[in-house]
């Protein structure tokens, strides 16, 4: 199972992204609607990819990167663009290919 964490403060967009991920066989989405929520998710579970969606600024992204470095999970953190269908799968495939 490929576990993907979506970090996005826009709940409807996060839900759309999660629905699209869950449509794919062996992919499972989790949603964090804030930085603190994301940090807690990463303590509780190791993710294969973390997608940074809308509403998450560079400062919060850097905090999350530092957190992942400390956890030594080597989870790739990638910016998600577009808010759903068009680019999502390519972004995830690319992130998984670089692991």
């Amino acid at each position: 199972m490929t576990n993907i964490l979506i970090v996005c403060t826009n709940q409807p967009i996060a839900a759309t992204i999660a629905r699209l991920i869950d449509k794919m066989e062996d992919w499972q989405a989790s949603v964090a609607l804030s930085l603190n929520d994301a940090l807690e998710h990463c303590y509780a579970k190791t993710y294969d990819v973390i997608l940074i969606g809308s509403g998450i600024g560079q400062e919060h992204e850097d905090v999350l990167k530092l957190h992942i470095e400390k956890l030594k999970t080597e989870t790739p953190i990638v910016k998600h663009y577009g808010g759903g269908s068009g680019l999502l799968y390519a972004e995830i495939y690319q992130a998984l290919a670089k692991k």
Partner: protein
Amino acid sequence: MAQTVLHTANTRGAADHGWLKSFHSFSFAGYYNPERINFGALRVLNDDFVTGGMGFGEHPHDNMEIISIPLEGALQHKDSLGTTATIKSGEIQVMSAGTGVYHSEYNPDAANPAKFLQIWVFPNKRNVTPRYDQITIDATTRNEFVQILSPNADDAGVWIYQDAWFNMGRFDAATAKTYNLHKEGNGAYIFVLKGSIKVDGQNVDTRDGFGIWDTDKFEITSSTDAEFLIMEVPMKF
């Protein structure tokens, strides 16, 4: 020395949803080709055909500059910013999705298809306040580059959050013009809508895409009467 890439029309990704036929110059939705992800900040170039009376139901976007250029027919647009508008051939629409926007697009003409280009450019600033604009573009000028998009609100055409410039060209056969790139580090992706052209001697036919970078200018010569779109974008962003 200039570097180039040619994407011939028949190598594009294709999707047929019945009501929507789309050709993807770059990886999009179910089409994934790791060799065709983007050209610099240009991420999506979809050549869409929407059946009469059909369209895209409400769906979200964020953090992307989304440009639509109708080629035939019209699209009715509604979005969460409160915009209700119809865009038709001869116009250009731009949406900065920023923190998030929902929209729907339908072909209001039940009898005829709408054909349009959907272009996505990575923004140079994330999480901006969403915005929408549409304008009429100059469809009469021939044998000149006609600017339809830039980074500047007070320049010709629409504007976006990126150092990008788009120009349309409608050339009579055997017309030659030099295009000078606006910014160091930018490249240009030329998409031919009708006819055939040569870009620095390379044949580029209808619906082919040709990218050129590591240069500050290139020459376009029309082999036939031709229409094309030049999308100048940063190669690093």
